[in-house]
């Protein structure tokens, strides 16, 4: 009797956790093991008994020009997005945090500024596709400053397509930064700013010597999260350009999706997926370390 109740006490937390554990094992742990397995097989999924081929798939993917093209596009897309998100998010957060506007103005502005974050990828894609059409509103507005003509095609020209999808990604991603930075700004003690003012520091100096150092942990955290998210982005690019024209907007996610679902080369797709996963895990490890540092 006593032994039984002791066992029950020990098992209790696992009982509460059991639905989560089952889900995580079936839909996370097993799939990741599967994808690893596929990456070492020839013709995984397609044939009944695929052969084990060691690192052959890895050699093939790492020797594939298209893989490196996709990697290059991804680096551009991710780095430009993250930097622009950071700058825009910071500017908007500072703007919403000034004493120059009334509370109501700031509340309305905040709702409008967060709007792009609310929309689903397909709405974002379709909306920008409309606006970026030749004869569209973007061409019209930019024709006043001579940056476009009536017939400028932003998405179907190799020169502009990658920059254009990056811009769309910047548009829909900055609100997360803005809101996090705003929360961080409101958490900085007013004393710090007062003593800086007493020392005669100007706005610029206060920003670099107080605001930035105080926000640094938050900035690093969100930038790392955004790095991981942006490497993963698929939907908006897929719907805007599908990777084209001529692979000029093909990022790693698009490259993997096309390998798997258009060309049914699951083994090669899995190999590329494992490489992307490894990169994300490395960043995540840094992220967790950073979080620990913040807590201490």
């Amino acid at each position, binding site marked *: 009797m006593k032994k039984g109740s002791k066992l029950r006490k020990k098992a209790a937390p696992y009982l509460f956790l059991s639905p989560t554990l089952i889900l995580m094992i079936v839909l*996370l742990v097993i799939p*990741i093991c599967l994808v690893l397995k596929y990456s070492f097989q020839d013709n995984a999924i397609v044939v009944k008994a695929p052969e084990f081929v060691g690192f052959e798939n890895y050699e093939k993917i790492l020797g594939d020009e298209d893989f490196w093209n996709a990697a290059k596009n991804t680096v551009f897309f991710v780095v430009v997005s993250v930097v622009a998100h950071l700058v825009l998010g910071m500017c908007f957060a500072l703007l919403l945090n000034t004493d120059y506007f009334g509370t109501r103005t700031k509340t309305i502005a905040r709702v409008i500024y967060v709007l792009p974050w609310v929309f689903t990828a*397909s709405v974002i894609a379709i909306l*920008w596709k409309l606006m970026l059409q030749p004869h569209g509103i973007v061409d019209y507005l930019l024709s006043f400053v001579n940056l476009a003509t009536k017939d400028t095609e932003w998405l179907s020209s190799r020169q502009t397509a990658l920059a254009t999808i990056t811009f769309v990604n910047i548009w829909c991603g900055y609100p997360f930064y803005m809101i996090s930075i705003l929360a961080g700004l409101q958490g900085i003690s007013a004393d710090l700013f007062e003593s800086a003012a007493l020392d005669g520091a100007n706005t610029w100096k206060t920003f670099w010597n107080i605001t930035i150092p105080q926000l640094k942990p938050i900035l690093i955290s969100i930038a790392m999260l955004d790095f991981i998210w942006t490497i993963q982005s698929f939907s908006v690019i897929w719907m805007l350009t599908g990777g084209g024209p001529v692979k000029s907007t093909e990022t790693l996610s698009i490259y993997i999706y096309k390998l798997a679902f258009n060309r049914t080369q699951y083994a090669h797709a899995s190999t590329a*997926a494992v490489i992307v996963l490894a990169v994300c895990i490395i960043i995540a490890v840094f992220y967790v370390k950073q979080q620990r540092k913040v807590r201490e």
Partner: protein
Amino acid sequence: MVGKHKRAVKILLFFLLLAGGFFAGFPVLWMFISSLKTNAQIFAWPPTFIDSSFSLHAYAEILTNAEKVRYFINSYFVAAVVVVLTLVIGILAAYAFSRFDFPLKGAINAVIVSVQAVPPIVLLIPYMSLIVTLKLFNTYFALILTYLVFTLPYCILMITGYFNTLSVDLDEAVMIDGGSRWKALWRILVPVSLPGLVSVGMYTFMQAWNEYMFALALTKTNNMRTVPIGINLLMGQHSYDWSQMMAMSFLGSLPVLLLFIFFQRYFIAGMTSGAVKG
């Protein structure tokens, strides 16, 4: 002199505030305006705001089309089930994390946190074979199960945080009266943390409502498609009937938009907790 300077700064900042509002809000406004025009008028040069072609025709067209209404029903159903399951499973897990110490606690927690670092595309390939093996391809179940993997971690972390702020005395009071842990959880902890649960629930709804890639790969027939796929399908179907696409986009964004406008405080609390608290 100082007053004049301050006024100049204020005007400059106000101008910046408007420019930012234009950048963020104009595309959304343009979507709404375009949904009220005919296709020809959308590309008028110079463009117009509201013109003679104003009509709600595109909305009527969508709301009377059984196939498109079905997309909305599918999306509401999938999102609602995902919210309920996420909350129930998440509450149970959060209770374990908040009230017990057990040997594998750290490891399990690490797995849950690490989900954020796993790109969905990595899971999509094995899901394809897994879902087909389980005979769930092209069913609601396929979507509900796979969405849970991405909604649960956030939910568990948030609710564990809420429960940790509640004193253990609350549970013990129930248990001294002869109640079980089960009773303490559902009768005391859950009602007390209701505001937090509402916020998590809304965020989950938004994730499920907006998901695109799994819905694209794991469903095949139109009676299983969700709104994001439906919007995307319009692109090929009607040789670009833009006003209908914009109307569908607007209708598809409406649930999340309304939730967001009425409960923005909750949303913003949810968004920031990840980065600020960690």
